[in-house]
Every structure is written in C-alpha cells, then in structure tokens.
C-alpha cells in the first residue's frame, strides 16, 4: 500500500510531478480559492453519474407493465394516463430512489470502514453491525410477535448497540483497526448463534419471514420508507464529508496521521458512528444488503486510480451497483422477484474472486 507521495519519490526528476498524480490546479475567484482537480476522477464521476441516470430511467421503463420512455417522462411531470402515473410515480420511482440512496449510503459507509481498518475487505460487518441489526430485528419480531418487516426499529437499535459494544470492547488505549475487526468477528459469532437459536424456536413461517428480511430486499417498499431513509442518510453523510481529508491521513497509520496533527481517536469515533448510522438507516427497511459496502469503494478506487476515490464517485458507484442489482433481481426471473440481496451476493462473489485473481497476478498469494 504505497502512498501517492511514494510515486513522486521514485520519479527521475522529483521536481516535475505528473499532473495525473497530483491533479491540475484550478484557481477561481481571483486566485483566492484554489483546488486540485484530478481529470480522471472527474471523468469517472461524470461517467458514473451518466450510468446511474441510465439505470434509473430503465428501472422506470421496464416491468410487468412496460411503459415507454416518453410516457414515463410525462408521468413524472404529473401528466399522462392514470395507470402510467400510478406505476411510475407511486411504485417504481420510490423503489429506485431507495435503491440509489441505500446504495450510496452503503458505499460511503464501506469506504469509511475500509480506510479506517486499512483493509480492502472491511465493511460495516466488521463491527458486527449487520449481525446486530439482524438479531435486533429477529428479537423484536419474536418479542412483539409481529412480522419481521415491522421491526426496523429493532434492527437499527440492534445494529447500533452492537457497533458501540464492539467499539468499547476493542478500546484499549485507543482503537486499532485490527483489534476492532477481530472483536467484531467474536461478537458477530455470538449474535449469529442467538439467531440460529431463535430460528429453531419460532414457527416456520416466522422463521422464513425473518430469513427473507436477512437477505435484504426492496420488494414492497414505497414513499413511506423513502423519506425517513433519505433524511437519516443525508444527516450521517454530511457528518462524513468534512472528515474525508482526515480519513486519507488516518489511512497512513495512526503514527503518521497523529504526527500530521489528526486527532486520530476522535476522528475515528466520529467517522465510525457516522458510518454505522449510514448503514443503520440504509438497512432499516430493506434488511442488511451485503457486499455493496465491500465492493463499491474498491471499484470506484480502481476506476479513478486515486489512493482513495472521492466520496462522490464512491457514492455514485454504490448507487449504480444497487440500482442495477435491484433491476436484475426484479426482472431476470420475472414474474418471480428475487430479493436484491441475492443479486448483490453475486457481486460479492465476483468481487472476492477478482481480489483473489489480482493478488495471484501480483504474486502475493
């Protein structure tokens, strides 16, 4: 894992860094505001945005009742046939918006965890979040006797409490990425045994409902779920943005970043809380959707060829991945709708395989 500065040191003439490595300077407002712009990163972000828009439109068009694009646009403007408006505005639009929001949230949360733990396999699972959420949801549905879908509160509480517990258990003169990961694995194992126990004791229908929630699905979600998810995700997302520069310093290790003046422990705690919040709101209604958090940051990073891809590209990549996965899950075996979690699973498997192949190619296995 070489920092970008390392490349400069190896260059034959260190005075002449390539613009691709440091970005092009951009001065606005008479030179009072200056930015570094990575041309490739901008291109990637634009490309991702375009692809996301395309998936968004396709999601509105296709379905058991296909609606041509002009009629979709009319319906979005509140015109057109009533049936069109119903399908586009009331059914498909909230679902695809949810997919975009959740995907973006998961991707940013994954990026934060991967960089905090300095490991490409990092994800909110690391601190036991998903296991906590799943167990919370199951407990709530068993205790309240309701369907598993009615327990978003249980999920959010379970996930957040578990993440906090893991953080506290891993705290020993500060939290080290590695220790956090391992404590998370231990706590997760405990929770998953609680879950198996609950599943053996509940009746078959309830157990199956709980399992369906655990796979992660957007089926049957609408506007009523979209607004709370969006609000929560925006609040937590805004907490991450100002810390993103510190994040790339933390990635260099606690010693270096501490030396460069980052209050490592505090930044770490805030970032982790924000990332857990992002995942909590993202999975409150849909259930934990795996692998978007794992794959999206790495894909964005490879595309943009920067050490840590900009948060924007990462978020776009996540939104694109999840919306596309949901489209596939809905349409591939139509009229049977698979949960989106099943489709992201394939993404996850492919990601792991790619990771494996890459490391083998570099002769590191």
């Amino acid at each position, binding site marked *: 894992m070489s920092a970008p500065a390392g490349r400069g040191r190896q260059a034959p003439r260190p005075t002449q860094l390539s613009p691709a490595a440091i970005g092009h300077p951009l001065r606005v407002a008479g030179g009072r505001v200056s930015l570094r712009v990575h041309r490739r990163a901008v291109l990637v972000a634009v490309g991702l945005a375009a692809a996301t828009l395309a998936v968004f439109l396709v999601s509105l068009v296709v379905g058991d009742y296909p609606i041509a694009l002009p009629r979709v646009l009319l319906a979005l403007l509140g015109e057109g046939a009533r049936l069109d408006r119903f399908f586009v505005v009331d059914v498909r639009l909230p679902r695809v918006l949810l997919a975009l929001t959740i995907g973006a949230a998961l991707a940013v949360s994954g990026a934060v965890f991967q960089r905090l733990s300095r*490991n490409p396999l990092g994800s909110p699972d690391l601190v036991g979040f998903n296991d906590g959420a799943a167990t919370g949801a199951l407990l709530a549905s068993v205790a309240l006797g309701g369907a598993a879908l009615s327990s978003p509160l249980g999920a959010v509480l379970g996930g957040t409490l578990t993440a906090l517990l893991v953080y506290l258990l891993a705290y020993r003169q500060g939290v080290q990425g590695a220790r956090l990961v391992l404590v998370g694995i231990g706590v997760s194992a405990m929770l998953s*045994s609680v879950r*198996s*126990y609950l599943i053996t004791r509940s009746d078959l229908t309830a157990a*199956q409902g709980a399992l369906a929630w655990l796979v992660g699905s957007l089926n049957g979600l609408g506007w009523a779920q979209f607004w709370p998810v969006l609000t929560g995700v925006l609040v937590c997302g805004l907490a991450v943005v100002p810390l993103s520069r510190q994040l790339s310093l933390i990635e260099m290790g606690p010693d270096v970043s501490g030396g460069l003046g980052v209050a490592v422990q505090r930044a770490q705690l805030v970032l982790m809380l924000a990332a857990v919040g992002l995942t909590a709101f993202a999975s409150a209604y849909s259930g934990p959707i795996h692998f978007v958090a794992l794959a999206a940051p790495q894909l964005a990073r490879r595309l943009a060829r920067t050490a840590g891809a900009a948060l924007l590209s990462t978020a776009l990549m996540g939104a694109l991945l999840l919306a596309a996965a949901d489209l596939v899950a809905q349409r591939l075996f139509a009229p049977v709708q698979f949960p989106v979690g099943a489709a992201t699973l394939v993404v996850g498997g492919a990601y792991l395989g790619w990771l494996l192949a890459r490391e083998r190619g570099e002769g590191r296995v």
Partner: protein
Amino acid sequence: MSRTLGLLLALALLGLVVVLSVAVGAENVPLGTVWHALLGGRTDYHSKIVLDLRLPRTLVGLAAGVALGLAGTLMQALTRNPLADPGILGVNSGAACAVVCAIALLGVDSPLGYVWFSFAGAAVASLVVYALGLRGANSGPVRLALAGTAVSAVLSGLTSTILVRDAATLEVVRLWQVGSLAGRDIGLLAQLLPFLLAGAVLAVLLAGPLNAIALGDELGAALGARVGLTRVLCGVAVVLLCGAATAVAGPIGFVGLVVPHAVRMLAGANLRWVLPYSMVVAPILLITADIAGRLVARPDELEVGVVTAFLGAPLFIVLVRRYRTVRR
C-alpha cells in the same frame, strides 16, 4: 513427566464428564441405573433414556470434540495464526451451504447422503479462504479472519436465499444449523468414524514437521521438514476432521479456537503434547457445554452450539485484546 500426569488427569476428567452426560438431563438417572443400563439386558424407562438418547449424544460429543480440538490446533499451527478456528475461517458456513444446496437443489434427504456435501463444502470454503487470506509470509491473522468473514457472508447469503424460497429445506436445516449433539444419528457417526480416525492419525503424524515449520518456512525446511507436503496433508486432515464433525453435529464454533490456547497454557507449545491434550480437553469442553445447555433451561435445552458461542466468544475477545497485532 508432569505432562503425562496431566494428560492422565484430563482423561479421568473426561471419563467423569462422560458419565455425567449420560446421567444428567431433564430426567436425572441415578448412577447405579446408568451402570445397569450400560451392562444391558434391561428395558425400563431409564435404560431407554440412557441407551437411546444419552449414550448416542455423548458419543457424538466425544467424536465431534476430538475432531474440533485437533482441527483447531492444526489450523492454528498451519496458519501460524492464534485466532484460527473452523467457524471463523468459514469452514462451517461452507459445509452448511453445501448441505442446504444438496437438500434443496438435488433432493438429497438423508443425513447419510448429505455428509459428502458437508465434506465438499468444508474443503472448498477452506481452500478459498486460505487463498484469499494468506499473502506471503507476513499475512497476519486479521487478513485471514477477514477472508473467512467475507467468504462466510457470501455462503450464508446463498444459504438464506435458498432457504427463503424453500420451507421444507428450512425445516430440516434449521435444526442442523444451530449445532447440537442431541438427536443425531448414531449410524452416521459409525459411517464417519473412518474419516475421523484418518484425520486424527494424520494430525498426530504431522506433529513433528509442524513443530519444525513453526519456526518459519526456511528454518523448517532446513530442519528437514517438507514444507509444501506438510501444508497439504495438514489441510487434508483439517477438512477430514471439520467436515466429519460438522456433518455429524452441525456447525459448532469456538471449541477449535479456545482449546488449543488452553492447552498451550498447560502443556507448552510442543505439538507432540498439544495435539493429544487437545484431543482430550476438547471433548471435555464440548460435553460440559452440552450438559450445561441441558441444565440452564430445563426442561427445554440450549443447543451446544449456542453454549459454546457464549463461552467461546468472550474468551476470543479477551485473546484479541491481549494479542499484540502485527502491523502490516
């Protein structure tokens, strides 16, 4: 000499635990009756409990315990990773996923049939985790554990996707998946015994070479160990042991993790001692956990997989907190 004595003491303790396991439960059976029942020829209520329920259960616990203890020790030695465990490294979820696929997709319905899938799943999952998680000499324990978590997540996602669509399979699998010694088929155990024995013999034979490799690959080779061969054989032994244990008792975590640590505290790092000790201490732990599971929630029971997770996970966390993480 004191280690021999310790081993004998542990064996005696194991004997005591086995007797208790036969006697204690929702219905307590007096020890005299246990004895008579075991001698045979009696058909009263208590004898039936002892012979048909408690004895098979205890034997399963004994076999699974030996297998998990040895497998955990081998894994930790092979990966030079103090945190290796069949549960954490994804072997269990590989076995579970393969079993679910076999039942749901191929229509295999008897435990005797899906045993083989359990083996295959365990083998494939451990290969993938190993390849993902080991990177050069300084891979460190975290990477391996992460690879295990990631692979487990894929596999368990696949498992639940299948189960959501298939209630009949869920009904069969949910009882297997929690990891329990109760109600297991004794015929299955008999069928798996050759694999367990082969794995155990292999494990014991590998003690010497693994001791040498513990010093590092180069030093090990210089001491005459054949590093590659040892690795492969060790992997084979782990898959035989874990696959058999998981097939007979379901996925049980943390026994393979905790026992080697406890044993190393008692007997030092020499695998020639650690392996036999693990072989005795692990079933003690497993059967004790099983007895505890019967006692805490009488007349209901906690499955042994739940009990070991609740005993093992806190210990794991303590280990993690003590362990000085190697920087990458």
